[in-house]
């Protein structure tokens, strides 16, 4: 047993000093310290995410109206949900949302991947080209909505004049944003123009992650370019592509600003997306209980679809 040092005045002074916070913390377990660090974030999440969600669920079973806070609130059970799910106008907005979602994803993936594939080749001005292509996604949706409104204007807009130049159809004889048949495509075009670069960037990251030696080995095995593309490029980029679809899908499901600026949901209800209808119910008609139920239905839809999709994505990654 080693000799213990003598009890010096300094030691006695140290023992008399109260333990510092650091010493106290030193006595806590790792798990407790971890909880202390995480607790503020969890509290914040509970306050701004979970509590409003629970509150919204509660409101969805009532007839509460936020513009009449002093009126008695009645419990209406599932009536709000029943009214929403049997309302043909709501299904019309779902249909408009599905049309917008499907075609924007289709075009953005198709064009985004093609652009990424072309940009991935080595050529002079490659970096400049990439920068130019990504400019639209850097713009504010308010700016994009406003200038596309001018581009679509039948009397002064460039789009109508371009169509006249190509097809001979008089520029002022048709209106992209005011026509029932053209307006749903007009918003698809603008969203595709704005967000294709985002898909392109993700695809480009995927393409650049494929090692060159794989292609070199395929060349040695005399695999055709076509075969290399379908059996090597596409499977290796697919997880990236699916990720881009997930991001864009969630974003476009809740699309609001761009479409409000372009068409305001019109003409009629042809471009009335679910999020626009939700805003109208909540903050124009002030049917808070009803709109809470609508919000919950949309949340469950997005959450359910995203969960299924993420599982599929994980399976693709595991292959």
């Amino acid at each position, binding site marked *: 047993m080693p000799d213990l040092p003598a009890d010096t005045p300094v030691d006695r002074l140290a023992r008399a000093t109260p333990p510092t916070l650091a010493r106290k913390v030193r006595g806590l377990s790792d798990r407790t310290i971890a909880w202390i660090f995480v607790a503020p974030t969890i509290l914040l999440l509970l306050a701004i995410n979970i509590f409003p969600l629970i509150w919204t669920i509660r409101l969805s079973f009532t007839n509460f109206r*936020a513009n009449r806070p002093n009126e008695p609130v009645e419990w209406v059970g599932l009536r709000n949900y029943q009214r929403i799910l049997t309302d043909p106008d709501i299904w019309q907005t779902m249909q408009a949302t599905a049309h917008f979602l499907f075609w924007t994803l289709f075009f953005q993936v198709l064009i985004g991947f093609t652009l990424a594939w072309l940009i991935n080749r080595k050529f002079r001005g490659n970096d400049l080209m990439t920068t130019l292509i990504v400019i639209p996604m850097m713009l504010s949706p308010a700016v994009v909505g406003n200038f596309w409104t001018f581009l679509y204007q*039948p009397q002064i807009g460039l789009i109508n004049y371009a169509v006249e130049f190509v097809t001979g159809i008089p520029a002022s004889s048709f*209106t992209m*944003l005011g026509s029932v048949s053209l307006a749903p495509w007009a918003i698809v075009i603008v969203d595709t123009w704005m967000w294709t670069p985002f898909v392109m960037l993700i695809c480009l990251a995927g393409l650049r992650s494929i090692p060159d030696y794989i292609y070199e080995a395929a060349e040695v095995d005399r695999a055709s370019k076509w075969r290399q593309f379908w059996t090597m490029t596409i499977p290796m980029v697919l997880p990236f592509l699916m990720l881009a679809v997930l991001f864009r899908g969630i974003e476009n499901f809740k699309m609001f600003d761009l479409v409000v600026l372009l068409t305001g949901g019109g*003409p*009629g*209800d042809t471009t009335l997306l679910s999020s626009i209808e939700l805003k109208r119910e909540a903050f124009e*008609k*002030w049917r808070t209980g009803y709109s809470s139920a609508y919000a919950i239905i949309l949340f469950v839809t997005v959450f359910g679809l995203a969960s299924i999709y993420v599982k599929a994505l994980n399976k693709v990654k595991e292959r």
Partner: protein
Amino acid sequence: MKARYLAATAALALVAGTSAKAEDLTLCWAAWDPANALVELSKDFEAQSGHKMNFEFVPWPNFADRMLNELNSGGKLCDLMIGDSQWIGAGAESGHYVKLNDFFDANGISMDAFVPATVTGYSEWPKGTPNYWSLPAFGDVVGWTYRKDWFERPELQAEFKEKYGRDLVAPATFAELKDIAEFFQGRDIDGKTVYGASIYTERGSEGITMGVMDVLYSFGFKYENPDKPYDMAGFVNSPGAVAGLEFYKSLYDCCTPPGMSNAYMGEGIDAYKSGQVAMQMNFAFTWPGFEVDPNVGGGKTGYLVNPAGPDGERFAQLGGQGISVVSYSEKQDAALEYIKWFAQPEVQAKWWSMGGFSCLRAVVEDPGFAASQPYAQTFLDSMAIVKDFWAEPSYATLLADSQKRFHDYVVAGQGTAQEALDGLVQDWTVTFEDEGKL
């Protein structure tokens, strides 16, 4: 000594004439030309009262959203609110506005001194009862402007007479208005293609409802059974109302410029000032701006009361607002002081001279009023035939329903006019059932 005494007395009188404490008052309104005129006018109040005026102006498309949110949340931003006429029911029943009856009585302000339609439209709730929640502040009504210089061209007059068998003059009926609109549609004037008319089609706020209602009233539309409140079947969707809605759609289809599928006040002003259209539906507040415009001012513009319907009935959609004291304000005394000042005849006369449409009878019934501006008589005649949209507390829901039904039919061409109005009766019935009024 005597002089010093007099000076002290005068100072005391001045202090007693104003409130005990100088306040910072905030007045909330829409961002438009009349609001700018009110800023100038209010400088007199600042000088007289010692209070400082601040202003919160919101563009029309967001005005209702922004201000109703403010009121519903009990916000203290606005001490004075010049709110839209249809807000009066919610303002009164939800306790947003201070009831002004006692204040009016105490200060000798009589509602008889104001144009009756504006008192009913802007101040009373319930309608037709002497319960006042605002002072009529800005009279407004939907009317029409037309290119008088085009109408007076001999070659156009001759061609029109040959085609329609009558003179090319301001239309007296909606049928005549449509003939004229068709006549001008696609016509080349001074090397430029012009169009018949600009009408309201906007979907997002209240545009298409204001436009459609402006026509429907004269076709026999009524909101409810006069003998049974909230009984709408057969009134909202009466044969006359259906014919009126069909007329509005036919006017939109035949005679508006391309791209006017979401047009309201601003788009109408642009179309008219840029020389695109021969006629334009718009609120009267736009008229002073046309008089000073280099393209359409200086006698080129004529002003027209809403034309008559097929049975000779003639009504117009009321616009305009009253000024109210917000009940959440902590400066209500100073806010009431502003209303007292604003109600004075000389202030109202100055208000009119600056472009504000006064509702005070002493101003509009003055012998010189009709000749004071080229549009003054049209304004007076229009104000005599006004009707307003629902002013119920649930007006926002009722408005959202009509916006959808009208836009779906008129612009998107979905269904028939009969289906649109039948659907509107259903929507409004559900709203009133939810309100417990049915």
